[in-house]
């Protein structure tokens, strides 16, 4: 059912997007759309666990997928929850014969017009961080190869999320660290400048710098910057 050519094109497209400056939510919505198109599933949704392990819908190909995910959360049962808790994919589960497994979800999903459900874990080493869920008609049946292809989509979603998370963290760390380093350096330089200008010790220069900051109710770094401004620039003859 899934054509190799379609699949290859899609992976190349997705990889291209990942390299660029991408918006994660946009990317994941696109991924659910593509997963739906390629698998023939009626609705595709992606759920992610928060830091307390509670699942939340993050992206979906349509409202139906969103509703089915919310339903599972509300009923506390369903393929998505099974997949998340076990870390194992749920493939080709037919709702008509799954009323034992999901006594409340299965009838509700059938009533909403769905027949088959599939869920693929989003795995990071030993941890499951979420699941990619597909809801379809009876003919939505995946072969082993097709299952692997859909699992690869779930893996791409994982990578996209982690990439954004780690880049954002690294950015903040770098910015804050550079900021902290810079303000320390500026304060020390200003201490040296005051010490030299006034013939006092760096410690006394710091006391003077701090009292200036307090008197003018400004940040120490701002006062230090002011002290350093103009050093080394051409001066007036007088």
């Amino acid at each position, binding site marked *: 059912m899934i054509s190799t050519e379609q699949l290859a094109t899609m992976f190349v497209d997705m990889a291209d997007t990942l390299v660029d400056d991408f918006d994660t939510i946009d990317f994941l919505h696109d991924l659910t759309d593509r997963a739906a198109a390629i698998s023939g599933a009626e609705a595709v949704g992606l759920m992610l666990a928060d830091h307390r392990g509670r699942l939340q819908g993050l992206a979906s190909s349509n409202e139906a997928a969103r509703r089915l995910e919310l339903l599972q959360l509300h009923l506390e049962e369903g393929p998505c929850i099974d997949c998340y808790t076990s870390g194992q994919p749920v493939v080709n589960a037919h709702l008509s014969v799954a009323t034992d497994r999901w006594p409340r979800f299965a009838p509700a999903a059938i009533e909403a017009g769905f027949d088959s459900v599939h869920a693929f874990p989003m795995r990071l*080493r030993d941890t499951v961080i979420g699941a990619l869920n597909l809801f379809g008609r009876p003919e939505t049946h995946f072969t082993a190869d097709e299952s692997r292809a859909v699992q690869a989509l779930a893996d791409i979603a994982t990578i996209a999320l982690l990439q954004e998370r780690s880049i954002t963290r690294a950015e903040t760390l770098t910015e804050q660290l550079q900021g902290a*380093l810079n303000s320390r350096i500026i304060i*020390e330089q200003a201490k040296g400048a005051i010490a030299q200008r006034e013939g006092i010790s760096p410690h006394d220069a710091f006391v003077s710098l701090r009292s200036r900051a307090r008197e003018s109710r400004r940040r120490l770094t701002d006062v230090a910057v002011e002290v350093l401004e103009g*050093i*080394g620039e051409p*001066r007036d003859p007088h």
Partner: protein
Amino acid sequence: MCVDHTADDHTRAWAFALIDQQPPASEDGIVDWLSRLCRAASQEVDVIAATVTMGAPGDTSAVVAASAPGNQRFAETEYAVGEGPANDAWMLRRPVLVPELGGPQDGAWPGYTATATADGVVAVFAFPLQVGAVRVGVFTLYHDEPGTLSPANLATCLLMAELATERLVDSHASDGGAIDPSLEAAADVRMEIYQAQGMVAVALEISLVDALATLRGHAFQSGRDLIDVASEIVHNGYRLGDDRHDRNHEQDRDQE
């Protein structure tokens, strides 16, 4: 957390075990862990020292961890001279591997090569700590004999760089986005250099950048550590002899 890592779980577990085997020091959290990482790496790869620097090693930066207490100096050399392999690794965003300083793969760092060689360093291997386009610091290994890294050792170094990056970035995230105080404190090592920089700038009426260059030049010419030169200025006042005279002299010449 890390996305573009190539190491499998088994190799990562092995590397973590190497780090955990290192006895913890008295210091706190992340700096101690990074120091153990440096120690584990230098033992495993069999080099004389390893360091972790945050920021651009030749510019605004702090040496946050080293394989042994005195080993910070190997990284401080790059700040003292304002150039070197770790600084290049930061600038180029890729590993810089120098099997022999002064050899064909030396990156043309006259100041660095002279200073590092005098300190017994022969080979240097620098790995940027980065996530995508975001750079955090540099992991550097130093050896007293010439030679390239074996493929296995290269893989170990890359993995250690990856683990160091993850730990730095994760520690930051788990701490509500605040910088670990031990990392911040690492910046204090160069306090006196910055103070001396301010003093020299005022005394010579030159920019702070030129003042640092003057300090570096003085340290290099006299064969002393930048930190010692700076410390002397801070404690005894600024007396760099005829620097000012030379400078004025040059200006006079320029005006002619």
